């Protein structure tokens, strides 16, 4: 229940200036009945950067993605996406904000009754009113990007877990959003399939310039996304260790009981782990 709205902080004013970050959370609080989910959560996501949320189950990681999409409303605090304040926005107005956001849900959340082609092209055909032919061209393009071109006419039930996640990534990126939100995209997948999903995330960030928010409790995936870069050599995409500047563009946020427990890059996270038992328990 929103009661008292504090004034915008100086940090928020600066963050919302021209060329500022693409996603801003400022002192966001959320509780369901007596259970507090988020307490005073503030962060900014710069264009083209990655924000990785870590934490135990129930720490509020997925809630942050739902708040960024406007699927949930905070009790207090401000949320800005692309310069638009969305924390009090009506559902009808949120549709325009969501045009620039894509989300990959935990289990993919593909529409059971639609084929892969229809799932991936859903937004283009149903919402953006593209022609069937134009939609088909883009669907084939994004399915090729995630390496599932030959599965275009399959139903979701005929796909493996990893293929479903990759189709979900294709669906989220089909309308070329500038921000992609990933909700535990590798949970329940084997290491090889997880790696292929991680590579898609890195490809989208480095080759398409997409800003990403990744929620996960799989540390190996989080560090892979943070510390690798994708480059295109001719038609082939290669992955290599990111340089220092690139690696610093991926920030980790560790949540504990709804609060931000740690914020920093991958090397800082490793350093803090030596003295912080909570983070250490995660890294080990």
């Amino acid at each position, binding site marked *: 229940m929103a009661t008292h709205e504090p004034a915008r902080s100086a940090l928020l004013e600066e963050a919302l200036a021209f060329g500022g970050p693409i996603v801003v959370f400022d002192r966001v609080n959320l509780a369901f009945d007596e259970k507090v989910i988020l307490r005073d959560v503030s962060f900014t996501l710069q264009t083209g950067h990655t924000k990785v949320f870590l934490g135990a189950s129930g720490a509020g990681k997925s809630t942050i993605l*739902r708040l960024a*999409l406007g*699927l949930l409303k905070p009790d207090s605090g401000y949320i800005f996406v692309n310069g638009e304040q969305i924390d009090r926005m009506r*559902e*009808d107005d949120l*549709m325009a904000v*969501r*045009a620039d*956001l*894509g*989300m990959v*849900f*935990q*289990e993919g*959340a*593909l*529409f*059971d009754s639609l084929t892969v082609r229809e799932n991936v092209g*859903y*937004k283009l055909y*149903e*919402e953006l009113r593209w022609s069937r032919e134009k939609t088909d061209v883009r669907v084939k393009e994004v399915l090729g990007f995630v390496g599932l071109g030959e599965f275009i006419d399959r139903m979701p039930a005929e796909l493996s877990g990893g293929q479903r996640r990759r189709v979900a990534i294709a*669906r989220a990126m089909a309308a070329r959003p500038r921000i992609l939100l990933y909700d535990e995209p590798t949970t329940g997948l084997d290491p090889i399939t997880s790696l292929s999903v991680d590579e898609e995330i890195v490809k989208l960030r480095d080759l398409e310039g997409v800003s990403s928010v990744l929620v996960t409790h799989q540390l190996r995936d989080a560090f892979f996304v943070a510390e690798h870069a994708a480059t295109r050599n001719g038609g082939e995409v290669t992955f290599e260790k990111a340089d220092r500047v690139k690696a610093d563009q991926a920030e980790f946020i560790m949540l504990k009981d709804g609060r931000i427990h740690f914020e920093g890059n991958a090397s800082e996270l490793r350093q803090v782990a030596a003295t912080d038992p909570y983070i250490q328990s995660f890294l080990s």
Partner: protein
Amino acid sequence: MAGKVQEWSKSAVLEVQEYVRLIGRVSRAVVSPPIYYRDVIEQFDSIGIGSLTVVLLAGLFTGMVLALNSGITLDQFGARSMVGRLISASMVKELGPVLTGLMVSGRVGSGIAAEIGSMMVTDQIAALRALGTDPVRKLVVPRVLAGLLMMPLLSILATGIGMVGGWVVTVLQFHVASTVYWSSVVQGLYVQDVWMGLVKPFFLGFTIVTIGCHVGMRTTGGTQGVGNATKLAVVASSVAVIAVDFMVTKVLIVLLY
């Protein structure tokens, strides 16, 4: 004990509030774009054509059993030729709409709750919203339109086939001439009865479909939640069919008779 009663009352009021809100959102969505015409047509097929067999069979056997029972009773007074009157009045005013309503509750109400409920617990509804689609416009409005328009048609067909079932039994069992039966059917009907038979199914269709959608959209708790939602939708919409039938009948008697 008092705490439990208070908790139950609060959740009941919340359900009613959410149901009314859903109806409000549907009302606004019906008169403003976008309307997903393809989904509307799909639902006309699913709710209308899909329910045809069960509704026709229910109507046929109801007409037949009505003829059997009323024929035996009327025969004691030498009035077997009046069977048609009894069947037409009962089928048109009450049994046609209500039995169709109950059949549609079982088939469509449960199906809607299970389908939308499954979409809720697998995040497909959230995915729809994330992709810029209003789930009420995409899922609820087409079903409500189909329920509103298909229920009267199904009810007319059930009533018609019920009369045919009554005719078969009356002619074969009680050896009443076909012309006597059909003229008795017409004599037993008044314009007010026909209006009642036509108006009721609109209300019943709306009630069944909106309850199914509401229950589906409020589903939580994984596959067990979907099972509970399906059960709740059938029970709630079946009881609502009888209750709404009573209320609409009461109002129509005041207005028409």
